């Protein structure tokens, strides 16, 4: 063993490493993208990462950035691992990021208390801590467009309407298949509350994280209990496995509902039998909108994207686009509010609070009908937007309902309790000092 060579090699490696930290120009806005193209969840992560990156890259190529300022995009690979996510956060912190989107509840939680200290707003789009919808308590955290409680109330409402009114749910059984983690357990209190109000019965089927791909015991119980409806709160490989098991155990697929995370691949896992599987969604699928065509033209065709051509317009790709749409809108709004071109994290926080996506603005952006209207305010960082139901027809997702309004009252009760609880458990949780902007 040659120590000399080894130590020489190490010394060279350290020198090279120290001398080469990427620098960013001052006349650009730095947007780090936390992505997970590797690891156990890469199957969904790659689509999302491509969508997020390509939309912002398209703005760079087509419009020269936002408001004439280029966006400095940089991906940081988290592998959906909290450890690496926190490392990513530390590595981007010094470069004045205007927003951070952790794309994992596990990474979001440690960042929540840091956001206000480091002055970096956090956009956890429909995941993370639901209580952070309260802008008065969490001024730096944003989780639009809906919380999991909103999602649950929408699914129950939709089922109720199918039965001919929520009161018809009396005596029915609803099975709840969920990931046995904070994410999957969050809607349970609301579901129980609704069960009490409308007189249906709830059966829980928890799936431990390590058993995501092996759900035979849960589906055996489903077969025994024969619940009238099944609702799923899953992520990653759990969704595909559940669809497969549901088909195998002969569960009627048209009575199987999911929150907004399954992808095309998950539904496809069930083969032809998966037809009728339904899920909530809040944006359109497909690539025939002007902005998405621009992505094709300016980014994908020029070879600036990692995405294969046909992945543009898939469900999770568009989810990534939606995420970037919010980032871009927040930056644009911040520029309008402050009059500055190169905005900071503090400005973008204000911009985020004043996002107003109405049909007119969406049309202007080339995304007409991409999603419903959405508006964030100083106190409401979520907007509790309606989502619609879509159904798998064997090859693609088909929108089958009008937007469903969440049950605001019940959700509000859950939200307030959780936010109060969080603030109480954290004595010394800072009071909001950031001023509110007047609604423009």
């Amino acid at each position, binding site marked *: *063993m040659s*120590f000399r060579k080894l130590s020489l090699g190490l010394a060279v*490696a*350290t020198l*090279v*490493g120290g*001398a*080469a*930290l*990427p620098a960013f120009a001052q006349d650009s806005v730095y947007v780090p993208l936390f*992505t997970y*193209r*590797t690891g156990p969840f890469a199957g969904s992560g790659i689509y999302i*990462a491509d969508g997020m990156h390509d939309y912002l890259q398209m703005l760079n190529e087509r419009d020269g950035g936002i408001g004439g300022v280029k966006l400095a995009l*940089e*991906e*940081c*690979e988290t*592998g959906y691992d*909290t*450890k690496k996510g*926190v*490392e990513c956060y*530390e*590595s981007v*912190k*010094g470069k004045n990021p205007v927003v951070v989107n952790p794309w994992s*509840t*596990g990474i979001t*939680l*440690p960042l*929540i*208390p*840091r956001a*206000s*200290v480091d002055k970096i707003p956090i956009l956890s789009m429909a995941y993370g*801590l*639901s*209580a952070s919808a309260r802008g008065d308590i969490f001024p730096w955290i944003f989780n639009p467009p809906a919380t999991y409680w909103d999602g649950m109330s929408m699914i129950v409402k939709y089922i109720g309407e199918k039965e001919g009114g929520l009161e018809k749910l009396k005596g029915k059984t609803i099975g709840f298949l969920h990931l*046995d*983690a*904070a994410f999957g*357990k*969050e809607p349970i*209190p609301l579901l129980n509350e609704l069960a009490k109000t409308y007189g249906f019965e709830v059966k829980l089927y928890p799936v*431990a*994280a*390590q058993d995501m791909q092996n759900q035979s015991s849960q589906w055996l119980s489903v077969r025994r209990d024969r619940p009238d409806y099944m609702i799923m709160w899953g992520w990653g490989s759990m969704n595909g496995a559940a669809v497969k098991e549901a088909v195998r155990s002969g569960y009627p697929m048209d009575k199987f509902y999911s929150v907004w995370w399954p992808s095309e691949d998950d539904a496809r896992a069930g083969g032809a039998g998966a037809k009728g599987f339904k899920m909530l969604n809040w944006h359109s699928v497909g690539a025939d909108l002007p902005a998405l065509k621009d992505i094709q033209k300016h980014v994908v065709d020029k070879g600036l994207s*990692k995405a294969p051509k046909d992945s543009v317009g898939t469900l999770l790709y568009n989810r990534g686009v939606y995420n970037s749409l919010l980032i871009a809108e927040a930056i644009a709004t911040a520029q309008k509010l402050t009059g500055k071109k190169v905005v900071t994290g503090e400005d973008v926080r204000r911009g985020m609070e004043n996002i107003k996506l109405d049909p007119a603005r969406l049309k202007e952006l080339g995304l007409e009908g991409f999603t419903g209207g959405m508006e964030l305010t100083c106190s409401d960082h979520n907007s509790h937007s309606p989502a619609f139901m879509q159904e798998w027809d064997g090859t693609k997702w088909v929108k089958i309902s009008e937007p469903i309004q969440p049950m605001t009252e019940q959700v509000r009760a859950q939200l307030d*309790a*959780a936010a109060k*609880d*969080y603030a109480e*458990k*954290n*004595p*010394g949780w800072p009071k909001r000092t950031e001023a509110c902007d007047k609604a423009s």
Partner: protein
Amino acid sequence: MFYREAGQYKSNYKADMAIFPLREDKIGIGVIILAAYSLAFLGDSFLLQAVMIPFLVFSLAAIGLNILTGYAGLLSLGTGAFMGVGAYACYKLMTAFPDVNVIVWIFVSGFFSAAIGALFGLPSLRIKGFYLAVATLAAQFFLQWCFIRIPWLVNYNVSGALDAPLRTLFGVPIIGATATPQTRYLVVLTIVVVLTWLASNLVHGRIGRAWIAIRDMDLAAELMGIRPLQTKLLAFAVSSYYCGVAGALLVFLWYGGAEYDVFNINQSFFILFMVIIGGLGSLIGSFFGAALIFIMPIVLGIVLPAMFSPFGISVGSDTIEHLRFMIVGALIIFFLIVEPHGLARLWQIGKQKLLVWPFPY
């Protein structure tokens, strides 16, 4: 030339048995500790928060596992869970008694972990080797199950996660979002230095010799009057104590909030790799192992793009990630082949060569 034994006379048994018998070694360790402390004032926040703090935390956990696996010869796969016990115990204690200084609770939380560790160490009297590893695997799954299912552990937090409320030491925040990386680092460093010093005294003393005797041949050790049950359970307790403290540091001084998933089986393997790569039965090996397994990927993440960019090749973050995996994996195999006794053995050989330098014999 500067590092030699000649001329240093040991005039009593104490000097002969010292952990650092050479003057140069004593100076060396002093310089290392001094450098570590001065890093708090020289390093930037990325270096402290994302590299040094986790490195020290993992080193402490590796010392814990090394006591059990390296010194007492008991294989354990429950490290992650024992770290979790420390973290959850610390959370319960610091929220139930907010007036007591949190440093006290960090040290006390280790005792909860020690108790749980000793409990799961009971089967070690009858089963050995791989079978014991499976038994500790049960501890890992059972405790992880507890972390998810017992909402009392997180004070009925809706998110089911641990959070780090503001805590101070001498009026300076050390836990919570307002704590600076510098203060966090100093606290972690001090705790790690103190506990390493304690561990060093333990393993070089009567208890450590008993552990080594049990490891090398438990039947012979028993005949010599070492009680296997007490010795093994003590190894489990001390090991879990270190892991527990490391777990508390991990959640409160590094992450500042965490989900149960942090303490999963992967964490256990992560620490086990550090111990094996670093060197079984060596304290300094625990630090080497933590450095190789934790810091190496970070360094590669910075070095690799810099190495490609002069050639005009821009590589995506995912490619870097794949390269990191491959290079670290290859390095692990490389080190295991050239030196199966771990990096600590390399260090020892290096020191010996220096002692006789410039003459080879």
